[in-house]
């Protein structure tokens, strides 16, 4: 990397990276910070960046206080003097804070209340389908999940609408693939519409005509996975698959997932923007986040190609193929794409919800 002048940086790459801007600027992206604070480590406790707001102070786990950055590159912005992010762990109390006006904006609502609140007229609610997808991860290193027919049987047996409704009420879209229909990269490939007969057939072919016993592993860290597990348990029972539910807290769950101690886990990937985000780390052979043990050289070739192909149309084709392949082989059984839901008081203007869950207040002002 080279600084050409005060306002320009040149980045030289060893291979094409159509994904570059996303990797720098999106949800899991980076910030431009002064070298000194990284070297002395204070970047952790007093970050300095180039955004519309400046860090003032924080109490970890409780709140972060920001004030307007008078040196922001866009003249005149931000309009508000500052933003304080207050952490309120209980959903009901969070909502009460919003309703009483103690806070002006919230980024989570109890999903079962979203529709009612949206139509109440007292607060503004926005839902945007984003880059979040939720799925069942199967352990290909264990029987019977090493047999693709068993995995496909599961994909045929479930009813994604019911799972989505039970887990997220109106804030999720059932999906047989990971990419949301709103995205440019969406590929309409519905090969697993619910078909209990087909599921039973496949199970019989694979040698399990009477089903088998197994276990779901959701986590309390994401309450929705527990609800999903309960619904899925009932659905799979219809084809003879008897699943227990082993619910774990986050730290233990991560340990079990990493060690491969599971049959079927339920989790999600959030903040995905570029198609590479949806597939590479999860399904490429031997990568750290490939917990299912999936390994397909053809998929690897496609995934590597997709990373470096700069022509968008060609890229779309590659990822369409990737989706067909991965959806059919079902290392993941996709459940639904969930929405980003945020709500605010009517006097908050100039803010809108973004599908990647980024929170941008530089255009916001308060009309009161």
């Amino acid at each position, binding site marked *: 990397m080279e600084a050409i002048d005060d306002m320009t940086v040149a980045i030289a790459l060893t291979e094409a990276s159509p994904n570059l801007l996303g990797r720098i600027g999106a949800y*899991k992206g980076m910030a431009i910070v002064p070298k000194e604070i990284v070297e002395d*480590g204070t970047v*952790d*406790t007093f970050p300095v960046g180039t955004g519309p707001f400046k860090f003032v102070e924080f*109490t*970890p*786990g*409780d*709140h972060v206080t920001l004030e307007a950055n008078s040196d922001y590159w866009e003249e005149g912005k931000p309009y508000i003097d500052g933003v304080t992010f*207050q*952490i*309120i*762990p*209980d959903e*009901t*109390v969070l909502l*009460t*804070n919003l*309703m*009483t006006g*103690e806070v002006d904006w919230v980024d989570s609502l109890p999903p079962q209340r979203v529709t009612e609140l949206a139509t109440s007229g007292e607060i503004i609610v926005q839902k945007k389908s984003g880059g979040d997808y939720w799925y069942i991860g199967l352990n290909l290193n264990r029987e019977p999940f090493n047999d693709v027919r068993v995995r496909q049987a599961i994909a045929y047996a479930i009813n994604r609408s019911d799972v989505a409704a039970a887990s997220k009420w109106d804030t999720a879209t059932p999906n047989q693939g990971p990419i949301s229909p709103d995205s440019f990269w969406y590929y309409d490939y519905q090969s697993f519409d619910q078909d209990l007969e087909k599921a039973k057939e496949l199970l019989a072919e694979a040698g399990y005509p009477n089903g088998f016993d197994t276990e779901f592993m959701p986590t309390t860290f994401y309450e929705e996975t527990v609800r999903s597990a309960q619904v899925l348990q009932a659905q799979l029972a219809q084809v003879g698959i008897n699943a227990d539910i082993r619910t774990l*807290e*986050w*730290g*233990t769950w*991560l*340990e*079990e997932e*990493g060690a491969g101690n599971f049959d079927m886990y339920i989790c999600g990937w959030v903040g995905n923007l570029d198609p590479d985000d949806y597939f590479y*780390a999860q399904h490429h052979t031997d*990568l*750290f*986040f490939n917990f299912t043990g999936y390994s397909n050289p053809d998929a690897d070739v496609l995934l590597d190609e997709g990373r470096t192909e700069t022509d968008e149309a060609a890229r779309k084709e590659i990822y369409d193929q990737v989706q067909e392949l991965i959806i059919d082989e079902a290392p993941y059984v996709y459940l639904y794409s969930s929405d980003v839901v945020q709500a605010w008081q009517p006097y908050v203007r100039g803010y809108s919800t973004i599908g990647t869950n980024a929170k941008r207040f530089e255009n916001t002002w308060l009309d009161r």
Partner: protein
Amino acid sequence: MANFLLRRLFSTLLVMLGISFIVFMIVHLVPGDPVRIMLGLQADQAKVEEIRHLMGFDRPLMVQYFEWLKNALQGDLGESYITGQRVSEAVAQRLPATFSLAFAALLIGVIIAVPAGVISALKSGSGWDYAAMIFSQIGVSIPDFWLGIMFILVFSLYLGWLPPSGFTKPSEDFGDWLRHLILPATTIGLISASIMTRFIRSAVLEMIAKNHVRTAKAKGLPQSRVTSRHILLNASIPIVTIIGLQLASLLGGVIIVEIIFAWPGLGRLALDAVTRRDYPMVQGAVLMVAMAFAIVNLIVDLLYVYLDPRVKY
């Protein structure tokens, strides 16, 4: 007295050492890898190994413990794995909120429990007694999170009298501090009062049955004298004990109420630290709680000297 204090100091240090060791072992042996939790989504196996090594997680547990102990004895409790904040600073940050809540709740509890317990014992079997017992039974049975949420819904959402959650430092805005303190302190205070009422009632009843009280009455002393000097003064020892125990446990943080009221106390700090396997923070929070217990117990024991002339150290 000096001897007593020295011995107390020594035994307290021993207890804290023991606690720090046990907690260290438990939290390290429980499944869950802080590196994995820390690195989140941008990690790969190589990075995990690297960080593991950097943080010394690949060394034997005893070595890691003694490393922590060595630093702790020099006043360095380390830094949070998650935020990088110094543990001592993080714990200190939580103290104003924890102290405010603990003392306010205790005050409310004591103001209710002492009269209620004493009167119900003195008038045992009367309407007052039954009322106090029913109140305390309800209080002990009600879940604190339910009570807290009910208070928030009634006093904040429906009546709009008080803010629903959060904490403001008294130095920043005294009125605001009070307004935020009322609901959580009352939630805990009522439940604490219920617990203490029963103890206090028992303690006083026991005292009433004693021989020296019968003698005092037989001597013809006025009832008020009998009550204050012979019953209550002697019952004050168990009463002070239960109040001390309540205070110590409140100072340790009240996790559930802190979660409901978004109260930045020690309880939540400890819970978040355990959830994320933030070992130094867990050690720091636990040590703080142990110290609170030790100090309160010491104060209660010293109070015994004033209350009971037979006690000498």
